[in-house]
């Protein structure tokens, strides 16, 4: 216990957290602007007539045309966080608005959005504004040059969990021994300049799979260790630049490359700040007050609980029978990234007891993205079936029954039906318990 107590008392320069706040805020603002500019607010949150809400978050709905306002609030909060103005309000606003957006529709779920939400939540309780922020410039009472070491370490730990669990998820037979799904994805890029021809070789996906797995598992430790840090960071750049070039994964590589700077020393971050002050001709006297910030004691327990939860939650899949990649029960919120090439086809038939019957045109209810996501994920198939039940009940079908003819291919295996075609999905309830109407995978993917 003495060890823990003395660790909790250890202080560090506030500079790394301040630099992280600035980078994180601007990156997030940039990614929101990009999202807006690509017209995705309209196509993902306004145009669709149905949204796949998360279990327990059914009350989260898009705001119609006002969804733009939601993004505006979110972007504004990100900017305020970056410059450190009205920090507490801004970071709470950022956490709430960003999480709200991500909870609107499951089909847009991305692990890195979840990561951003979690970092925002941590930042709500961390003193990222006490140093080199507009708030601390205006109010000398909140200024501090030193903060508890664990404040910074908690950001590092969050990143370490992301990487390590992403690596752990790759320790499976599909990834390591069949190089799936990279064996499918990489040949698709064989027309790239310079390196494209490599992807014609069967061993390249294996090399990439093993490198990716080892990278994810080891990078947090290498970054944490002063001796390897520079080389580890070079690996971070190489890895994420490669993934950015090869796969359409948007802002994620860029966010990770910038976020990983948090592992660098206080000196490094101080130099960054000194550089910024000289570029923008900011007076620097207020940055050297020698004051320390004390985090409230309840946070010790709070953060501990948070991290224990983070470390345990990805293992919840063990509570379900069946193959995780097939059922996806416990798949989300577990840092399982780019692990599956999964494609599917789902055709629904609705029957009323009054003899009415219809084969559903998914196009009338779902966007292309939503249909693609729904057709491979059992929980979304169920949600959609319930939507169809209600829709056709309104169309005059009495107590509609909903059946699905599904067909799913996973990681290069030939497709097969995923959902029992004889189950009336209208009567099945969604819950955290195992969905018995998912047909068995009849194959094993060994590993995590």
């Amino acid at each position, binding site marked *: 216990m003495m060890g823990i107590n003395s660790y909790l008392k250890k202080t560090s320069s506030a500079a790394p957290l301040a630099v992280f706040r600035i980078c994180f805020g601007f990156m997030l603002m940039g990614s929101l602007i990009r999202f807006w500019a690509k017209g995705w607010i309209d196509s993902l949150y306004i145009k669709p007539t149905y949204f796949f809400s998360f279990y327990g978050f059914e009350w989260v709905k898009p705001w119609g045309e006002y969804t733009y306002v939601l993004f505006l609030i979110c972007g504004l909060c990100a900017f305020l966080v970056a410059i450190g103005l009205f920090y507490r309000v801004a970071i709470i606003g950022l956490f709430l608005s960003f999480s709200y957006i991500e909870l609107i529709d499951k089909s847009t779920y991305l692990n890195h959005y979840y990561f951003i939400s979690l970092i925002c939540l941590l930042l709500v309780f961390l003193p990222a504004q006490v140093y080199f922020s507009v708030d601390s410039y205006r109010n000398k009472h909140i200024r501090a040059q030193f903060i508890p070491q664990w404040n910074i370490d908690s950001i590092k730990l969050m990143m370490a969990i992301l990487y390590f669990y992403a690596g752990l998820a790759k320790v499976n037979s599909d990834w390591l021994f069949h190089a799936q799904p990279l064996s499918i994805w990489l040949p698709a890029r064989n027309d790239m300049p310079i390196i494209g021809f490599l992807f014609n070789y069967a061993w390249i996906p294996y090399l990439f799979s093993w490198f990716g797995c080892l990278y994810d598992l080891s990078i947090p430790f290498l970054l944490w260790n002063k001796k390897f840090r520079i080389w580890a960071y070079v690996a971070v*750049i190489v890895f994420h630049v490669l993934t950015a070039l090869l796969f359409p994964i948007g802002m994620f590589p860029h966010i990770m490359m910038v976020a990983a700077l948090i592992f660098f020393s206080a000196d490094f971050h101080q130099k960054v700040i000194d550089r910024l002050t000289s570029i923008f001709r900011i007076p620097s006297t207020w940055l050297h007050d020698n004051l320390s910030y004390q985090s409230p004691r309840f946070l010790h327990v709070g953060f501990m609980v948070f991290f224990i939860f983070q470390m345990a939650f990805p293992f919840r899949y063990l509570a379900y029978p069946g193959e995780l990649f097939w059922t996806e029960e416990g798949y989300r919120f577990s840092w399982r990234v780019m692990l599956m090439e999964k494609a599917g086809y789902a055709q629904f038939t609705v029957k009323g007891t009054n003899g009415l019957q219809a084969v559903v045109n998914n196009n009338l209810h779902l966007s292309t993205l939503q249909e693609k996501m729904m057709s491979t994920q059992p929980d979304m198939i169920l949600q959609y079936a319930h939507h169809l039940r209600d829709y056709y009940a309104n169309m005059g079908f009495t107590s509609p029954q909903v059946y699905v003819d599904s067909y799913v291919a996973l990681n290069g295996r030939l497709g097969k039906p995923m959902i029992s075609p004889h189950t009336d999905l209208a009567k099945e309830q969604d819950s955290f318990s195992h969905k018995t109407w998912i047909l068995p995978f009849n194959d094993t993917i060994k590993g995590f």
Partner: protein
Amino acid sequence: MKKYLLIVLTGLIWACGSNGTGTDEPTPQEDGKDRKAILIHLADHVIIPSYANFKLKLDAMLAKSDAFTSQPNTANLQAFRSAWIEAYIEWQKVELFDFGPAEKQTIRNFFNIYPANEIGIQSNIADPAANLEVPASYAQQGFPALDFLINGVAKTDEEIVAYYLTPVEGTKRIAYIKRLTTRMNSLLDKVINEWNTTYRETYVSKTGLDISSSTSLMINGFVLHYERFIRSGKFGIPSGAMLNGVVAPEKVEAFYKKDISLVLAKTAHQAYVDFFNGKAVKTGFEGPSIKTYLDALKANDSATGKNLSEIINAQLEATKLKLDVLKPNLYEEVKTNNQAMVTVYTEMQKTVRLLKVDMTSAMSITITYTDNDGD
């Protein structure tokens, strides 16, 4: 910085490669993963020659059509009709290229949307300025409209000829036939012209697999063609398999001529099989194709080790066998032997799954068109 690192890494991987796994790896070209080779073969030996063949048949039809319209008599009608049949059959071999120029001109919408809209056709005859560019006019032109005009306006050939010899009205009817055939000719010319000038180069150079790449557009068009126009259009809708068992014999292709509906379907199906296998139109030689690409990717059923391309070909063959037992007149088949029609649909549904899920997934192609099932 990023570029520099990438080059270093490339060098490293290159170095590993050359002293590593050795020289028995096939070169990319032999390996069949070279999409450019596939695109070149399909463009030069399948697509462009198919359009050229169709152009010949359409020209022949135009000549017979002109002969009939300048002198409506039964001999000219019969000659026009058989040229129409030949062109309609040949059309089935190009309808599947629904990407690039064909998609840009939406040629299929103007050539083969059926059942024909009789009321619309009649009102267009009355109004020579009627707009034929809008979606509402799709079913008022192309092969199905001609089907109505030369096979469906009366029972016997004499009566049909009489229909065009009616004073005042007859001239307008003849003018409409001319308008339709001229329009078909000019649309086809636009498509062929673009293939022969700029598009061939665009097609063979966009070798990626992103949603705007040639392969992605082609595969999307190819899968959609099977799902919506072969499976649903020719069998699913008329047989009622897609509409709660409500049969609609009047929705078969070539409804007025009736006895060519099967040959149209079989031709379309064979053209589909041939395109999948990259069969050159002139020589019959099977070159780089979707099939060879899937083989190069080693796409197979991991349970049995069977090639995906073999599975697809076997399923297409199984479908063909179901087609073979049908009688030439699908209108009659729907009315008297509909179970055989439904069986074809069911067999085709299995093919759709293989194409839409297994094939695209193995190729890492995203299906970007939206479903139209149940329409």
